């Protein structure tokens, strides 16, 4: 096997040094009744070339562009990724290094993550961003656990317009705790019913997604004022980080903690992971933040450098009293995000975000003209809900036969929205594609 370098001579020499006869003597400490007798029942080894064929075959059994046209978002977005990002990220100095516990040898990763923390904080309008979390859903769950630690209150209110999977993950994280979750309904506008905040009582946090699961842009400022009035924190989440290239940041609107998904920033969809949990907060909550942080410091000659810092919040020091159990995070994805943010720049990200919005508006209007209904009037970013007389299902089916995946059916998530679909349009869709889709909806 080409990954195993030992020759017979190597093995013999090493056994001689150790003073044993054969390798299996090393397993003498394992009692015989703990040993596996027989072989693992696994398929036999493949050569590199056989593996290529096998994997090509598996990957070939997937519906991806350009053969298929996908208008699916819902937490995973189709954005262009510059060749530079894949190339730089593939540098094995980044790819094959470990967590920078020995900072002098990993200044590259550390400066890169420090730059990510900075640009992430700027994007979200917050003062501190962590080195990364697993994904948007777990970042939200951690943000909410953080809120109950900070406020010492036991109830958390989640908007029902938060991604259903995110709410499921929050429920999983909260199930073994004494904390209580309640859901705030959404209105006919597609926005969360903020009037429910006042009456809830004893809230540690109010969590809103913006743009929300239906693509609608929530009134975070109003939500923040109402949350703060009852002594709760506003926790903002998001699935589409690109939106903040165009929209006001959640921090500037009053969010106290932000936890969401950065996949749109240069990370391939990859069937849903790995992606990038982005977690940020106001500086006063720094000691309650879970996960790694990179900080600037100086070396013994006074030269600037970077280290992992504030480890006393973390499990390897604090064990059961840590702010989270997280250890390995999604650093390499954070590096992809900072490379992408740097490639876009302020000029580029604003234009790219505007293009996403405008293309989605174009399709929205075209579908409306084709006789479809856009049920939620609130402004949206690059996703929106559509239905049609008698439901959009027939249109969706018809389009699927033409290898066009026209959105996600919402019925399984919201029974009252049966026949409604969530469509997403990004910069990857050309006008002709959008015209073709709308035309099909008409027929």
């Amino acid at each position, binding site marked *: 096997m080409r*990954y195993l370098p030992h020759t017979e001579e190597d093995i013999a020499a090493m056994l001689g040094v150790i003073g044993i006869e054969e390798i299996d003597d090393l397993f003498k400490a394992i009692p015989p009744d703990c040993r596996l007798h027989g072989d693992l029942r696994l398929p036999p080894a493949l050569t590199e070339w056989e593996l290529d064929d096998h994997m090509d075959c598996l990957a070939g059994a997937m519906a991806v562009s350009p053969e298929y046209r996908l208008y699916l978002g819902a937490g995973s977005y189709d954005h262009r990724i510059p060749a530079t990002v894949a190339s730089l990220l593939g540098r094995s100095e980044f790819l094959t290094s470990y967590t920078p516990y020995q900072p002098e040898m990993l200044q590259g990763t550390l400066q890169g993550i420090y730059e990510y923390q900075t640009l992430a904080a700027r994007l979200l309008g917050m003062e501190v961003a962590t080195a990364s979390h697993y994904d948007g859903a777990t970042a939200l769950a951690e943000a909410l656990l953080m809120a109950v630690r900070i406020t010492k209150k036991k109830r958390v209110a989640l908007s029902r317009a938060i991604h259903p999977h995110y709410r499921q993950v929050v429920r999983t994280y909260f199930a073994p705790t004494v904390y209580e979750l309640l859901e705030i309904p959404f209105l006919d506008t597609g926005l969360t019913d903020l009037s429910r905040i006042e009456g809830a009582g004893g809230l540690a946090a109010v969590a809103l997604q913006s743009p929300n699961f239906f693509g609608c842009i929530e009134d975070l400022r109003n939500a923040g004022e109402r949350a703060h009035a009852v002594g709760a924190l506003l926790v903002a989440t998001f699935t589409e980080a690109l939106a903040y*290239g165009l929209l006001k940041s959640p921090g500037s609107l009053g969010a106290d903690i932000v936890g969401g998904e950065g996949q749109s920033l240069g990370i391939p969809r990859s069937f849903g*992971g790995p992606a990038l949990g982005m977690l940020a907060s106001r500086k006063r909550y720094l000691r309650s933040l879970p996960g790694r942080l990179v900080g600037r410091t100086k070396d013994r000659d006074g030269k600037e450098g970077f280290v992992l810092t504030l480890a006393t919040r973390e499990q390897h020091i604090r064990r059961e009293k840590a702010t989270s159990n997280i250890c390995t995070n999604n650093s390499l994805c954070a590096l992809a995000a900072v490379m992408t943010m740097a490639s876009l720049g302020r000029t580029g990200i604003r234009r790219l975000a505007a293009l996403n919005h405008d293309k989605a508006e174009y399709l929205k209007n075209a579908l409306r003209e084709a006789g479809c209904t856009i049920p939620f009037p609130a402004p949206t970013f690059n996703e929106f809900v559509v239905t049609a007389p008698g439901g959009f299902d027939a249109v969706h089916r018809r389009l699927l036969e033409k290898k066009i995946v026209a959105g996600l059916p919402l019925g399984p998530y919201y029974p009252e929205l049966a026949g409604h679909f969530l469509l997403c349009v990004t910069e990857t869709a050309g006008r002709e594609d959008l015209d073709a889709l709308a035309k099909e909806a008409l027929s």
Partner: protein
Amino acid sequence: MNGPLGTSGLILNEPLLWEQGQKGRCGFSLPERDVPESPLPEALTGDGPAFPDLSEAEVVRHFTRLSTWNYGVDTGIYPLGSCTMKYNPKTNERQAALRGFAAAHPLLPPRLSQGALRLMAGLERDLAEIAGLTAATLQPAAGAQGELAGMLIIHAYHRGRGKQRTKVLIPDTAHGTNPASAALCGYAPVPVPSDGRGIIAPKTVSALMDDDTAGIMITNPNTLGFFEENIREIARIVHERGGLVYGDGANMNAVMGVVKPGEIGIDILHLNLHKTFSSPHGGGGPGAGPVAVTKDLARFLPVPRVVETDGMYALSEDFPDSVGRLVAFHGHFGVLVRAYSYIRSMGPDGLRQASRLACLNANYVREKLKGVLHLAYDRPCMHECVFSDRDQQAEGITALDMAKRLMDYGFHPPTIYFPLVVRGAIMIEPTETETKEELDRFVEAFRAIVREAKESPQLLREAPVRCKVKRLDEAAAARNPRLAG
């Protein structure tokens, strides 16, 4: 080659991103606008985040320079104990980047995503077989989330039996993630001291295990590199009092095809795909921490689960006892592809041989460094060995000093100050992919450093001197946090 690996090349300085660029530059090929502008209400929009504007070449040069300040397992041996920094095969990167995988949307209808689902079903089967257990979930995003999944399953199990328990037994050699994961489920960790041989004695467990204890979390082989020889008896004691046995599989690289944890009393086991199954660690992640369980516990696994009917795969949430969803979608699929590629490349014999050679390499280093450094427990180890700085303390030299000096010799240091049960621990895990020659060079460097510790200890205290920066002041970083520019 004569002389040490470590040398000083030309190291370039590179400013922070926002200290360069000019407004109006862009390193991204923006698609042409082919639709009319449709502005949002001004109240909703901002001026765009304060990112620097850079050209493509500036971005490339910036991150290329940064990369040269890094050391990866492609650069050289990375003997971090309990981290299993083995070679990360390049073919795995090719497979994960295949368009059918990399561009796949996680909510594709099942009939349009059969390739990914079949791969996941295959990997679940393979990992369950290696673990000696029945069913597996691929959702956990990292080892620590695998532990959380396991603790949630234990929590759901006890709740289902009508009486929740309050404590979990955790050996003193455990990773910090173990108590932190138990605490997330409201369990108070009860430390279990290891005995004079570095393992857990049944009578210790017996004295601690009661009807209020949910189970035990046990790493086997443990972080001292020893097999927990009493595991069957320990499992029997825990099971007898109605508890469950959680196996932390962080050190599974020692025993693939040698021991099946499910056959020796483990009920739940997580595996670190970024350790044992060769997926790269990426400077801190992403990893993946799949969890395998017994037949009885399968009903608690997270949803959605991959199900098969007549050769067609689908995802199902129809498991009413499930602990729920752990991540937004199906786990770190890109990492799963790499692990699947690795298992297919190795085959059953290759995996077993990898474990055998991992143990051979660790014992070779143990033998060669014995007498150079103080060996915490003088007996054969599995995949890693633990030394300490005891014999250097007279000169006032610490494990940290030796670790930093290793950098000057061109090696990544081992894990230090862990496990906590060994004072000044130096924990070495070479892995199976290192050659005898590389191990010899590493050992020689350590010998030279121990000599220096006696003859010119200042060299160690001042180390490193050949990296981009000299020793960094970590205390100052924590005292006055500067976390964003």
